[in-house]
């Protein structure tokens, strides 16, 4: 076996240190980045190609517009302005009882969508979604109900989504509306645009570039607004936003504004016969841990056990729709899965909240799968001393900050712990399946492909001591390096036994077959224990591991003992 010395490590670092990019290459890349920063344009990266069939394209487009619409309908805070002219614009907008406008959305990887928005402070709101000029779906949001109803052009009621008063308030806080957009313009040091005539109307415009434009939907965005010089009402707004590290570009245009025109109550009434039931009844998901878990579960169900590589909303969306496309092509989404989609959205929003609150959040979706019951998928700090941990199998636990616990224990006892022993103590605190597998691996080397008859600590350590002495010689006489190696092996054996005894103490019904199984028995059970009411964890002869049901275990053990 090659043993790596510190000198070898230093040499490796030195090799890397010798690497230096060419001066010309560095100058070129810096110049390229300079141009991009100055022009605020970053390459789109790899484009995502997928076509969403059925109603999803509309739902996605609707989600974008609802971001504006919900806030627009219920927004009631006064807006203070510094610019007199633009303050008048905001005031006019605030006083308007109704508004109608057209909204175009163009987004990387999505079909273009056109939405017509009708809003009345008295009756509520309605969104008509068009694809290729044809009205396909209408979404109704009555003023007196906490719900959205989605109706297809043929009259079929596709879905009803209900939400609570609290959720309505959350939406208002999260979303930004066109009025807020005007306010953000003035806060963001806007640049005055030269006046232009839009559809015969003389206008003045502002432009601003800031991540704030669009209310946090984008990593960065440029917004432009033009208002009628004589009426002071906005006539056109544009937002060009980038997200997902520049890979997704969104262009939104709002135009054809009609302010304060009378609207008929009937325009806001879906007129659904009482006998007709929506294809899907949904409740809007709360943005909490439960929704996060449901969202992750749904993703894993769709992906065959994988999780999104990142919990950034746009990444979840991109990976999810790619999986859908790979799995189902352009086939529409099953109605019963519709509600689960809202959990996915909530998952991204919950994660974003943790990041914003600086909860020391760590996510490992790129390596952990639904099978990894012993691996942390996500953790975040819930107090000074505790973490919340979600494992690969989506079990949740609150765990203590073990380093901190150890410090407290040491302080209380007045005892000191040598720095090199701290790792061992911490390992005892964090015993896991990994320790067992690592220790069993050491046994395989010492016993040349076999396992010890028992993992009980006293017996196993005695046997290990004799084998290690035989392999490395007496620890008092051997060199420092060999001694360190032998001690590491002994530690691994110890922690494997400690983990086994922990399983016994916790009554997890461990059963060990080391006397019958060798490393060549790849499909046969070496050790198993209970991980939940119905499931067991199994480690096979070749040290592969798997979670199985009680029935599967019975079959495996039957085969193993043949």
């Amino acid at each position, binding site marked *: 076996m090659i043993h790596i010395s510190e000198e070898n490590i230093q040499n490796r*670092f030195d090799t890397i240190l010798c690497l230096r990019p060419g001066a010309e290459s560095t100058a070129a*890349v*810096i110049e*390229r980045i300079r141009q991009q920063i100055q022009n605020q344009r970053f390459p789109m990266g790899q484009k995502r190609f997928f076509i969403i069939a059925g109603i999803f394209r509309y739902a996605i487009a609707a989600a974008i517009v609802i971001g504006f619409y919900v806030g627009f309908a219920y927004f009631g805070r006064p807006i203070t302005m510094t610019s007199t002219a633009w303050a008048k614009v905001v005031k006019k907008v605030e006083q308007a009882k109704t508004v109608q406008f057209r909204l175009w959305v163009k987004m990387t990887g999505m079909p273009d969508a056109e939405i017509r928005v009708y809003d009345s402070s008295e009756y509520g709101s309605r969104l008509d979604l068009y694809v290729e000029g044809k009205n396909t779906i209408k979404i109704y949001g009555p003023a007196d109900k906490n719900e959205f109803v989605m109706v297809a052009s043929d009259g079929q009621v596709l879905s009803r989504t209900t939400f609570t008063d609290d959720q309505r308030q959350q939406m208002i806080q999260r979303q930004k509306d066109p009025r807020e957009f005007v306010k953000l313009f003035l806060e963001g040091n806007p640049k005055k645009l030269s006046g232009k005539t839009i559809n015969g109307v003389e206008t003045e415009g502002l432009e601003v570039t800031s991540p704030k434009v669009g209310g946090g939907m984008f990593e960065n965005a440029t917004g432009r607004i033009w208002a009628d010089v004589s009426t002071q009402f906005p006539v056109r707004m544009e937002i060009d936003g980038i997200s997902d590290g520049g890979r997704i570009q969104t262009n939104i245009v709002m135009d054809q504004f009609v302010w304060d025109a009378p609207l008929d109550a009937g325009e806001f009434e879906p007129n659904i016969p009482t006998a007709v039931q929506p294809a899907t009844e949904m409740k809007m998901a709360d943005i909490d841990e439960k929704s996060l878990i449901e969202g992750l579960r749904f993703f894993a169900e769709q992906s065959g056990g994988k999780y999104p590589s990142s919990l950034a909303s746009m990444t979840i969306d991109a990976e999810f729709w790619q999986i859908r496309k790979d799995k189902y092509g352009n086939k529409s989404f099953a109605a019963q899965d519709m509600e689960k989609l809202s959990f996915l959205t909530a998952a991204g929003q919950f994660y974003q909240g943790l990041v914003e609150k600086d909860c020391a959040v760590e996510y490992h979706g790129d390596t952990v799968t639904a099978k990894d019951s012993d691996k942390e998928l996500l953790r975040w700090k819930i107090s000074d001393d505790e973490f919340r941990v979600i494992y690969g199998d989506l079990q949740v636990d609150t765990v203590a900050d073990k380093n901190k616990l150890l410090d407290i224990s040491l302080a209380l006892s007045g005892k000191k712990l040598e720095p090199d022993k701290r790792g061992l103590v911490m390992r005892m605190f964090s015993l896991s399946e990994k320790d067992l597998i690592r220790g069993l691996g050491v046994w395989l080397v010492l016993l040349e492909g076999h396992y010890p008859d028992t993992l009980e600590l006293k017996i196993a350590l005695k046997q290990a001591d004799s084998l290690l002495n035989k392999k490395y010689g007496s620890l008092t006489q051997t060199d420092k390096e060999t001694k360190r190696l032998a001690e590491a092996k002994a530690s691994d054996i110890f922690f494997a036994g400690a983990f086994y005894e922990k399983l016994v103490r916790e009554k997890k019904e461990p059963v060990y077959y080391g006397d019958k199984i060798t490393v060549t028995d790849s499909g046969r059970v070496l050790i198993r224990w209970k991980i939940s009411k119905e499931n067991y964890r199994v480690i096979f002869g070749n040290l592969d591991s798997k979670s199985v049901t009680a029935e599967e275990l019975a079959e495996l053990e039957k085969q193993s003992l043949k």
Partner: protein
Amino acid sequence: MDEQQQKVLDFLDVSGARLHTLLTRLTLSEETAADLLQDLFLRLLNARGFEKAQDSYAYACRAAMNLAFEHRRKMKIRFRSLGDEDPPENKAPGPAEKMIQAEEAKQLLDILSEMKPLEREVLVLRFLEQESYERIAGRIGKKEPHIRSLCSKAIARLRALLTKENKL
């Protein structure tokens, strides 16, 4: 041009080359480093943390390390899944010794990418940025003896992981 854009541009002038060098060392590829540098500055442009950071270089350096090691992990997973052992960036022909050195360097960085972020950061700052313990302590916000101990433990862990890797 807004204030943040100007700040990022100024920072690009002062530290762009140094970060490009660091990224080249962490990825062993000039081309990848250039892409990651571009990605890094896009993030800095939109990062509130960078806007508020007292030590802009420390912030950017950490972000660069995260990007580089994230890239390494992705490459490793991708190539493993294709049954290929080495990413193409290391296939440059050369004398046998050079190839061994390159392979060892790659292995070291791969192992680093699997280590805890703090251990990794300390090792990179110490050995690739060649910072003093005092300076590292200042950057990370811990005391110097703690950093020395952390570094020593990280080296020991790195040795153990490399030994294990070579055993396999």
